[in-house]
């Protein structure tokens, strides 16, 4: 079993003290296979409450698939995903939220998008209105509340999608390359939302190709290659002194092509 924090004992950047935080999410021998192709193999992870984990790796390494498996959007063909020690189910998923690379917004106003998500989560009346206003303010979208969500800029749409996910008050937030097509200002705004959410106790799991973002946001880093964990450990350690060839190539800005 790989325990991100226990692994840190061998690295100088993280305290060697054992992490006593609750294990929120755990994968055991997690794998996914389709048409005889192993897209993800034998993934053992423990994600602790309040942590910020970054998943990196080349295209096709299985990053987004791992995120979807952990969130229960796809059922694994091998192994298990445990949420607080129990099998992940629909009820458990209500404690989770996800932001996709391309924001999926309903054909409604920004406010109505938030209202829908909160309504699904059982929030009604004044409390819901309060959460909507808080979310709009956090995203800096109060002045655009009644504008159709799909005419907002890319950055505004992703901020809306992020605060919509956060408004559901999840324990864990999955983000699949949320800033992949955004400019630096929009990226900074999203990162700020992520850090604030984490400061409020929300566990973060983020997929990114951006080493700078991984460095800014990551406490732990998982590097995937060909559906397997190539390297795992404290983000700054992995980024500074990578042990695996693909992670080294990434740090050095080289193109790593497996022969």
């Amino acid at each position: 079993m790989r325990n991100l924090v226990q692994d840190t004992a061998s690295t100088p950047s993280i305290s060697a003290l054992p992490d006593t935080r609750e294990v929120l999410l755990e994968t055991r021998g997690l794998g996914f296979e389709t048409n005889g192709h192993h897209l993800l193999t034998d993934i053992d992870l423990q994600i602790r409450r309040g942590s910020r984990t970054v998943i990196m790796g080349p295209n096709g390494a299985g990053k987004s698939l791992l995120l979807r498996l952990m969130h229960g959007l796809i059922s694994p063909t091998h192994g298990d995903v445990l949420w607080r020690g129990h099998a992940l189910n629909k009820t458990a998923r209500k404690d989770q939220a996800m932001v996709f690379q391309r924001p999926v917004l309903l054909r409604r106003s920004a406010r109505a998008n938030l209202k829908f998500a909160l309504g699904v989560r059982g929030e009604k009346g004044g409390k819901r209105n309060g959460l909507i206003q808080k979310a709009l303010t956090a995203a800096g979208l109060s002045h655009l509340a009644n504008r159709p969500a799909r005419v907002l800029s890319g950055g505004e749409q992703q901020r809306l999608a992020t605060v919509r996910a956060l408004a559901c008050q999840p324990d864990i937030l999955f983000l699949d390359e949320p800033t992949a097509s955004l400019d630096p200002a929009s990226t900074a705004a999203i990162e700020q939302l992520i850090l604030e959410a984490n400061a409020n106790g929300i566990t973060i799991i983020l997929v990114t190709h951006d080493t700078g973002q991984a460095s800014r946001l990551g406490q732990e880093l998982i590097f995937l290659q060909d559906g397997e964990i190539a390297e795992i450990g404290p983000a700054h350690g992995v980024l500074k002194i990578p042990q695996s060839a693909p992670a080294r190539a990434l740090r050095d800005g080289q193109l790593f092509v497996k022969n």
Partner: protein
Amino acid sequence: MDSFWNVLASAVGLVFAFDPDLMEIVGLSMQVTLSAVAIACLIGFPLGAIAGAFRFPGRTLLSIVLNALMGLPPVVVGLLVYLMLSASGPLGPLGLLYTPTAMIIAQTVLVTPIVAALTKQVVEDLYQEYGEQFTSLGVGPLDRVMALLWDARYSLLTVALAGFGRAVAEVGAVIIVGGNINHVTRVMTTTIALETSKGNLELALALGVILLAIAFAVNALVMTLRASAVRAAYA
């Protein structure tokens, strides 16, 4: 027989004279058609949305049946509804044969598969986009259907329009179950058929003009609504 232009002039005169008999026929046509389309939408929208958004045993069969029923021959539908509503049929005691209600039933049977099949396609495309987000948010089945129908509302206007086009032009089924009884079940299409056979071309053509005008007006209205929606980026 008068020349075409004389007949056309007489027909236009009838239209602008707002002849009471003519207006009665137009009114009944609209009542029957709009009722049938409304009922078909009430059934077809959710049915199509369920078929488009959920995987369940028999889904493929349902799709095949809906697509096949889109091409239902109206006279066959008319005959089946006639058999159901006739005195010896299972619904005979209701006494609906040769009433506008019978015509609404026949048109509903014809239009519902069209609405359902086209709705399925619209919703299926939308669900490709929304599916994972809905699962992530934990949206339940009923909320999914409602949200998909609401967000596809402008596309569904076009679907309803297709159903309206089928219903308003229908003659075979409604003449069988309605009987084309004057002041009771006489609608535009059945009157056109009858008056043409009698040689009363002015009335037939006047109704034809009105039918075309209504079809154009409804299409224009729906397209304008849809265009407005696209401009507002909802579509």
